């Protein structure tokens, strides 16, 4: 049983303490994994009694509808256009000084002068220099989202061209030291950062709010598998590997596989594979499937496609890279690679009319969900106690 979180009620401080969140993500609607993580943190701060303001470093657009949505969610919103040069050095080395935008500093100082923050929360290591704009009376939180030190190596090991941000360990270490607490989204990442000598690491996993429970499937349609993902290189590579292995069996898989999201443009035409393309609402996709798949061959950071199905009442089958950071809680089958995943699918579901393990998977998924919720509640409690000791 988890103890109740300490909170910062308006009555205990005279008025609600304030937290400034700094984000380059378009948070409304939160349809990307990192935006959803940030909104998880916003909900967490609010649940602790904080009033939350936003400094939006506009990299993903701004319009009146977004302005309206943000105003409804946050106490005060400032929007600063991104002018970070974002140079990438040879060998795909990104220096934090080249990705950090000093243009944020004046807006952050002005907001602090107006609103008086107790906590400033920045996302991603290259925003850490902004923490220096706040005095020692402000608690500084850095949500890492991912480990970016030598992140490029994971791409090159998979034969891919490195993407987005990757920096040196020294640069990342320096950024982490600027924060009072750096949040790791996975237990393994927290351990890795602690092993590098950091003593300010707090582990806080990502858990989606539960949308619907695990229920018996509607018997009116065939048992359906599904994968939803954006068109990033890891997803494209993973789906190509998975479908290639399934096709190599030489026998058609007897159940439809529904694919949705940007990855559809890169998925081969194949019998039994139905491409939905972009779906406006997640439940549209999850309503159409019975079992989610996440056949990752690698990747970095949070595997949102592994935890998301559990919020929509669907079990998920994944490889080890897809379950990274979750294995200590995972009660569903996890496969070494896509060879293992396709073996399982063919053996367990390959015979039409054969006994289906769906019910057992749903039970395992439900207990995994409970384990995730407990883990999240425990870690939130730790974070709350830490915040209470600092604010």
């Amino acid at each position, binding site marked *: 049983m988890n103890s109740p979180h300490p909170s910062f009620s308006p009555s205990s401080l005279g*008025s609600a303490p304030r937290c400034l969140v700094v984000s380059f993500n378009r948070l409304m609607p939160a349809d990307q994994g990192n935006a959803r993580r940030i909104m998880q943190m916003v909900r967490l701060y609010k649940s602790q009694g904080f009033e939350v303001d936003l400094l939006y470093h506009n990299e993903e657009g701004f319009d*009146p509808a977004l*302005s309206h949505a943000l105003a409804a969610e946050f106490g005060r919103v400032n*929007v*600063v256009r991104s002018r970070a040069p974002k140079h990438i050095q040879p060998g795909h080395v990104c220096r934090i000084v080249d990705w950090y935008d000093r243009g944020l500093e*004046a807006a952050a100082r002005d907001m602090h002068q107006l609103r008086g923050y107790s906590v400033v929360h920045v996302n991603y290591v290259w925003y850490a220099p902004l923490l220096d704009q706040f005095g020692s009376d402000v608690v500084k939180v850095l949500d890492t989202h991912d480990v970016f030190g030598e992140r490029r190596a994971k791409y090159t090991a998979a034969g891919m061209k490195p993407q987005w941000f990757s920096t040196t360990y020294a640069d990342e270490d320096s950024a982490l030291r600027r924060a009072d607490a750096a949040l790791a989204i996975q237990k393994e990442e927290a351990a890795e950062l602690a092993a590098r000598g950091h003593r300010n690491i707090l582990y806080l996993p990502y858990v989606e709010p539960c949308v619907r429970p695990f229920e018996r499937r509607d018997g009116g349609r065939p048992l359906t598998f599904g994968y939803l993902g954006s068109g990033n290189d890891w997803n494209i590579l993973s789906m190509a590997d998975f479908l290639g292995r399934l096709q190599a069996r030489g026998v058609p898989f007897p159940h439809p596989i529904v694919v949705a999201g940007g990855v559809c443009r890169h998925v081969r035409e194949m019998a039994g594979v139905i491409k939905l393309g972009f779906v406006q609402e997640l439940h549209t996709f999850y309503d159409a499937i019975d079992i989610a798949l996440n056949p990752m061959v690698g990747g970095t950071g949070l595997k949102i496609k592994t935890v998301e199905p559990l919020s929509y009442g669907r079990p998920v089958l994944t490889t080890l890279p897809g379950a990274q950071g979750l294995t200590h809680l995972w009660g569903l089958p996890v496969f070494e690679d896509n060879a293992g995943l396709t073996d399982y699918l063919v053996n367990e579901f390959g015979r039409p009319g054969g006994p289906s393990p769906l019910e057992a998977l749903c039970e395992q998924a439900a207990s995994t969900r409970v384990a995730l919720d407990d883990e999240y509640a425990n870690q939130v409690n730790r974070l709350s106690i830490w915040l209470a000791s600092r604010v």
Partner: protein
Amino acid sequence: MTATVVDVWVDLFAASLVRGGMLRAGLPVVLTDTLRLLPLLDSQGPMAWIHTSPVGYRDHVPVAQGQPTTRLRVEAAAEPAEAARLLRRASVCLVAVPPDRGRAARMAALAAQALQSRVALLLFSSPDVAGWAAFEPLIRQGALQPVEAGAARVLASAQLAGSLGEAGLHDAERALRLTEQLTRARQVDIHLQRLGDRQLRLRLRTDPLRLIAAGAETLAHHIAHEGRALFNSRGLGSLLLPWGAPSAARLLLRNVRARIDGSEIALGPHTLAPTAVDYTEHGAFLRLALPAVLPGRDALLHLSLPREAVPGDGFCDIGAAEFTVETA
């Protein structure tokens, strides 16, 4: 010298205090019951307005390298904790004493919170407004000192009164120094001409974004998005006047599709007509002779453009604004 120009002098003095680093750390806070602006103080960085009556409009301040954000205006009745927090953290508290006794009593209670936090106070208004009576206990308790301010009544905490010097509030030399500094720092486009011992002519050119006030949320979000001083889609616009003194205004109206000579213009109870409209390639320059804003009234100029002048596929906006005020 009339009391209606007192806010010009208060603005000059307060801006010089902030500019000169003569205040303790914190925010300048203005206590008022009307929608007003102090453009010089506003140009010096974050400040807050605490209102003792409903505001009803949203106005904006520019953000460096970003989209405009709403000017911080707090309704004390709706957000008492926030008002108290601002007053505790204030660097100075400027109090526009209102004519209404009830509002004055509420305002005096708020000013007392600032006084408890040892915030320097400056009270100003016309000497004959009824609201002064509510402030008498505060004036005694805070040992506020009368300040030479011509026809206006001004009282200040000892530390402020001490920094005013012999000329009191109407110190033309201080005003000249300030405007030179602001111009040199390119913080404000202001030209100041000395007309007499305590008489000045100020010509202020300001970003109209700082003046436009949105009566509806939708328009406020469009202003935040576009970063321009927009009229709404029906051609209605409200402009916050710098100071309450009589002034000559020149406004550049852009994206108007027809002549605007017939625009309906109002300031408080006054219905106004343009003194001239010049049509140029940049837009229509509207010239207005604005009377003083009456005590207890918002300094809001309302413009309603003829329907045929309003584009169907966008907004009219104010591209430039200039005001000339004389302090005599």
